[in-house]
């Protein structure tokens, strides 16, 4: 018994140190990100292997895919952000002039408190928008600084994919012998469920992206490709995703004209309905068996912790915890 206490306390101290010392923390974060990326692409990797391609070449292909994907995103997004940024100041000015116009129209409302209220609201909104824009630009610049560490990620992903089996076996050795059997069983269950979840979400996202792309191109909205991809990616998040994904598209359409925005809204709504009621239940099937309230709660917690990525990862993490709980209860009786 005493040995166990000593062992656990040493383990706890090690983990604590890792998270405290920033160097280790960044390394650990990189490894976690690479692991999640590698795991997300594992279904594709296994499909390539089934087609007969060598393990290492498949892993190489996949990281090429990831790198090219990100390079494309950067090449497409950055010019458009810069272009939109210059539009932004003019939009802010027009918002300001609209507020002034209405304020002057309703001169009756020029009592002291109401005037202050309107102006302070206006100030707040402008300030918030400015902060948002500057912070996002800063983030983009930060990514440039972190380039060295980011470029390590594809390499780590390659090793996780190519040598995944070996790493897995080594990891199981970490656990005490008595628990290894049940750890392996839990691992297999988690693997099966997450595999299905990832494949189904991939298919859903691609499907939604294609549909949104067609709609946006037909309605002649700007940046159909980026918006379609955003909509597809956001669709992975169960209940909030479709709304959040549709908003950028509708905003872009609004820049063209209110009528296009209305049509975009209607079409996107139709697409979400088709996806939600017909396709998604079929593809996701019964893989994730969680009560909707629990799902919403998880998404909210995920959003609070880590924003967009939190929402995306909240469901898989919830699924993992549920599987561990279910398996322990099952094997305990």
């Amino acid at each position, binding site marked *: 018994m005493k040995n166990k206490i000593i062992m656990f306390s040493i383990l706890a101290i090690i983990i604590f140190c890792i998270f405290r010392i920033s160097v280790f923390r960044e390394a650990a974060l990189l490894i976690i990100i690479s692991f999640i990326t590698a795991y997300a692409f594992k279904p594709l990797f296994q499909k390539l292997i089934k087609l007969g391609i060598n393990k290492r070449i498949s892993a190489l292909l996949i990281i090429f895919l990831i790198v090219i994907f990100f390079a494309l995103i950067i090449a497409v997004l950055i010019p458009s952000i810069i272009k939109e940024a210059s539009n932004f100041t003019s939009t802010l000015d027009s918002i300001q002039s609209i507020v002034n116009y209405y304020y002057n129209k309703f001169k009756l409302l020029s009592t002291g408190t109401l005037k202050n209220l309107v102006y302070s609201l206006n100030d707040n909104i402008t300030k918030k928008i400015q902060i948002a824009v500057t912070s996002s630009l800063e983030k983009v610049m930060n990514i440039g600084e972190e380039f060295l560490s980011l470029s390590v990620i594809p390499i780590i992903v390659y090793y996780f994919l190519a040598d995944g089996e070996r790493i897995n076996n080594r990891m199981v050795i970490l656990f005490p012998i008595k*628990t290894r*059997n*049940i750890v392996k069983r839990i691992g297999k269950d988690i693997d099966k469920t997450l595999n299905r979840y990832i494949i189904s979400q991939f298919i859903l996202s691609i499907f939604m992206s294609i549909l949104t792309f067609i709609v946006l191109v037909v309605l002649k909205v700007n940046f159909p490709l980026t918006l379609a991809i955003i909509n597809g990616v956001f669709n992975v998040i169960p209940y909030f995703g479709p709304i959040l994904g549709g908003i950028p598209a509708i905003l872009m359409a609004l820049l063209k004209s209110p009528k296009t925005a209305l049509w975009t809204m209607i079409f996107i709504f139709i697409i979400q309905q088709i996806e939600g009621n017909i396709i998604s239940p*079929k593809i996701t099937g*019964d893989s994730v068996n969680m009560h909707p309230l629990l799902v919403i709660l998880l998404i909210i917690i995920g959003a609070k912790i880590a924003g967009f990525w939190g929402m995306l990862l909240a469901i898989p993490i919830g699924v993992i915890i549920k599987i561990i709980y279910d398996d322990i209860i*099952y094997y305990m009786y």
Partner: protein
Amino acid sequence: MYRIKDFLYMDVYSTSGKRFGFIKDIVIDINSKLIKGFKISSNKIFNKNEIVLSQNIISFSNNMVIKTVSDGNYISFSDIKNTDVVDINGNTVGMISDIIFEMNNFNIKGIIISTGLIKDIALGKKILIPEATILGEDTLLYIIDKKNIEFVSSAHKLCWEDEESNEK
């Protein structure tokens, strides 16, 4: 002897290697205490639930090989899961939580009842003999009045597998 979890999400193949889908539920007939087959969630677009009847099952271990799928409406386990179990005096004994069955003759050997989350941990889940039960519309009636013998599956150590639990 198997429980439901051993079969859930098992891939189902035909003898030619074609994948039908995965098992998502068990089709049971409580009143004759038999497993009629398994419900398959199929890959195809149309939403029909496919059933594989037990006589069409060829073999299974990590995956299942079957002859052909059938169609139809049957009662599956998820329909009766968590229904209340009452005894003759009207007291609620617990909720249906799982079943124990054999695969060589598809008999249901036992019904596992959960008496409550905390009570489960303390006293273990109860096991009922299916011959002593009658399935009603929304409850399961448990007939045995004199509790001379009670079957219990109590919480045991997860980690070190004893010889008794090494049957698979």
